[in-house]
């Protein structure tokens, strides 16, 4: 049959507000997680990562939270700017397991002026 592209969840926020992007990961054994940002026509750009021995990690304007109990990952972006508009993907892997990252389906973040 004909393949259909995924309908991406969209999050629309006002410039200057905080954004929270959520991700449900698939493998309970995964122990390394990465958030990537993908702007239109470009490759995934690393934002922040976290290992399973942590539940929170902060970067510049970004924070990643990990809840292993419910297999949930979130990315918080403080004081969003127009340049934050992009699709955000979470990716997971198991250290000692497969080489390849398993990507989530992505969330489209739109910044309203």
């Amino acid at each position, binding site marked *: 049959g004909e*393949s259909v*592209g*995924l309908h*991406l969840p969209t999050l629309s926020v006002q410039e200057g507000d905080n954004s929270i992007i959520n991700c449900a990961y698939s493998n309970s054994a995964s122990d*390394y997680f*990465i958030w*990537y940002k993908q702007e239109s*026509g*470009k*490759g*995934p*750009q*690393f934002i922040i*990562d976290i290992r399973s021995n942590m539940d929170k990690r902060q970067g510049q304007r970004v924070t990643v939270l990990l809840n292993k109990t419910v297999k949930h990952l979130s990315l918080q972006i403080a004081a969003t700017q127009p340049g934050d508009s992009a699709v955000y*993907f979470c*990716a997971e*892997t198991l*250290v*000692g397991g*497969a*080489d*390849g*990252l*398993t*990507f*989530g*389906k*992505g969330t489209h973040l739109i910044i309203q002026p």
Partner: protein
Amino acid sequence: EPEVTQTPSHQVTQMGQEVILRCVPISNHLYFYWYRQILGQKVEFLVSFYNNEISEKSEIFDDQFSVERPDGSNFTLKIRSTKLEDSAMYFCASSDLRHTTQYFGPGTRLTVL
């Protein structure tokens, strides 16, 4: 800042033709990867490469695909006989060690007619 580069940015080919997609990973990285992203869909792992051999490959990476490190800087993906469904963005990535951050190139858009 070092980055992964890819050429060409866009490749158009006829069905059944061979294509070679080229990548220059970050210079001190040891692990190299190819991923693809069909329009509107998730990024999918194809293959990883280490120490001049394939480390791991996904079920997508069938006999039509091959990878090579022809010299000390380039990493290539060859598709022997392209099919319409091979149309996608192909991303190269590299990491310094296994299960560390993978840095992605800008991608090659492959269009098979």
